[in-house]
């Protein structure tokens, strides 16, 4: 007890050095635990989402990009396919397709154009307001509502696709009509609109006043045409779409086959390498990705052990040097009757107190980060490329 009292008094006297030592020890203890926790959470989140997405259709190309865009709404946008891919699934009677158009953002939050079937398939419930019903209406994921600081009754503006592309997508103002209940999935961090609204942002559909006066040259009328940047009850009937709907772009199509047999038949239909559409089982792609991540994690573990060892040696050296500086003080203590055992107890007590202090700091840090691990992992996944 005397040794602990004297060690504590000494640590208190050299409080700056003590704080540095405790902080360094806390980091050495916490970082490996946090790294492991985030990796495990990321793996769990990736796997759970992939498992809940039976099949994805998209343009032939990178399977990983298709899965990341279609299941996790990341920035990795594959080449778009067309609505014909979703229509083909309907015609087949083998499952329910939910087309996704994820090319646009609002305030850096992904806008997901889809159909109401997607909300049903994912079991997404509206916590406030209602689902989208008309062109120009949006429903926010719980996380998106928090990030945008918006809710039912507010209005969002889609981000311009390219500031310098005069022929590109122009911002569309959309009314927020609902906020979804949190699910702990990428759906929380998305803004959902009807896929036709996404096509309006893309310029495939638009609304405008009747501008062509009888007998007037079409080019002259075109020059003064102004397309509506917001869809209102007054102008919604003027909105129309051009071209064959089967050719409209979609990023991916989530397919929920009716049963295992339907899933097998569907996958078989897209095996031909000449077929422009591919079918991907997200779980397969993510399992391969996670296996790679785990190999990297093993490397990280080894590096963590080496770095931790180096840090422990550095801390030991710091303690040793501080004891060397205290040699005259120890000689005085010895002269006053303190034996070698007492001096060793003093040194051990200081180490124990520093490690205890490090544990006291590291524990709440680990608990705090672990409690936020799902959100942090989701953000890391959503960062994409």
């Amino acid at each position, binding site marked *: 007890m005397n040794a602990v009292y004297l060690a504590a008094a000494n640590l208190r006297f050299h409080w700056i050095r003590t704080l540095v030592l405790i902080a360094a020890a806390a980091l050495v203890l916490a970082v490996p635990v946090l790294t492991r926790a985030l990796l495990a959470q990321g793996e769990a989140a990736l796997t759970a989402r992939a498992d809940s997405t039976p099949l994805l259709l998209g343009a032939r190309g990178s399977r990983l990009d298709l899965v990341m865009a279609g299941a996790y709404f990341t920035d990795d946008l594959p080449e778009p396919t067309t609505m014909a891919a979703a229509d083909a699934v309907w015609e087949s009677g083998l499952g*329910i397709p939910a087309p996704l158009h994820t090319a646009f953002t609002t305030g850096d939050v992904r806008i997901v154009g889809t*159909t109401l079937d997607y909300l049903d398939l994912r*079991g997404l419930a509206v916590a406030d307001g209602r689902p989208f*019903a008309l062109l120009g209406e949006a429903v926010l994921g719980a996380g998106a509502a928090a990030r945008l600081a918006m809710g039912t009754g507010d209005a969002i503006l889609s981000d311009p696709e390219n500031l310098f592309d005069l*022929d590109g997508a122009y911002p569309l103002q959309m009314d927020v009509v609902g906020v979804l209940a949190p699910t702990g999935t990428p759906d929380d961090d998305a803004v959902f609109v009807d896929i036709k609204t996404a096509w309006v942002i893309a310029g495939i559909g638009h609304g405008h006043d009747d501008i062509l006066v009888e007998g007037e040259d*079409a080019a002259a*009328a*075109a020059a003064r045409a102004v397309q509506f940047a917001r869809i209102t009850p007054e102008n919604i*009937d003027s909105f129309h779409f051009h071209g064959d709907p089967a050719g409209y772009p979609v990023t991916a199509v989530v397919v929920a086959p*009716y049963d295992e047999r339907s899933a097998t038949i569907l996958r078989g239909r897209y095996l031909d390498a000449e077929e422009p559409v591919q079918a991907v089982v997200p779980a397969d792609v993510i399992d391969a990705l996670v296996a790679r991540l785990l190999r990297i994690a093993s490397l990280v573990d080894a590096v963590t052990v080496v770095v931790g060892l180096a840090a422990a040696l550095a801390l030991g050296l710091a303690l040793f040097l501080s004891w060397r500086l205290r040699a005259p003080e120890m000689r005085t203590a010895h002269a006053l009757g303190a034996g070698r055992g007492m001096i060793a107890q003093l040194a051990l007590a200081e180490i124990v107190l520093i490690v205890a202090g490090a544990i006291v700091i590291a524990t709440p840090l680990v608990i705090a980060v672990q409690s936020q691990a799902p959100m942090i992992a989701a953000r890391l996944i959503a960062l994409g490329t």
Partner: protein
Amino acid sequence: MIRAALAAVLLAAPAWAQDRPVIVADSYPMAYFAERLAGNAAEVRLSVPDGRDPSSWRPGLADVVAIQAADLIVLNGSGLSDWTTRAALPRARTVDTGRGLADDRIATETITHSHGEEGSHSHEGVATHTWLDFALAARQAEALAAAMARALPDAPVDASLGALLSDLATLDAAGDALTGGRTVPVIVSHPRYEYFGRAYGLAVEALDWEAGAAPDADALADLASRADRTSARILIWEAEPPTEARDAVAALGLSQVVLPPMATPPAEGDFVTGLRDGMAALGAAIAAGG
């Protein structure tokens, strides 16, 4: 989880707290077919308010939200309910009965307009009253039956479909017998009979008269001119005209027949009896020298 949600999508009754599943149809023929197929297994509602034409009706937000909540949404397709391009409907619970009719549609006038940097572009119109070709109507009924069999596994759809197809076949045969293989020119008061004319040997010349309104002198002059040009001796009304309108047309020497296009519920009878009676009157007019 998605499998469980899929089951919920297909089986659970959504918002309407009804004992029976609710089917919403966008036009009377689709509502009639759904009623015939469902029997008492479902409540069939017509989304269009009384007296409104489904081709011009635009639902408000509350209407769309109510339609979204139906267990099955039945659309005629072929451009009849243009509002569906601006509304979000759950496709898993929506059946477009005209989806398989792409090769059979009749193009109408093309509207060309221009805006933005795209230059001019065109919207091709499509005749919407597909059910007046009863062979097409039968294919729509079959498409509806397939969707209803999935959505309402307890409904006697298969048994009811045979009776409905039989009635439609009877109407189709009556249509085939109208002209005896000739092509008979007729004038119609409104452009709704494109499929009927094509299917049953009528060369249709369409006016654009308001139902229930009496034509003015210019309209009557236009009618006389068209009758001369086409040699048509029969005018088909979509609804019973005012007496003065009937008298004015009679003065031009034209026979007159009321053949309701059935986009809206008839005042008396139903889809089959209304069309059967109208076609009988038309057949009589043709036989009388029209």
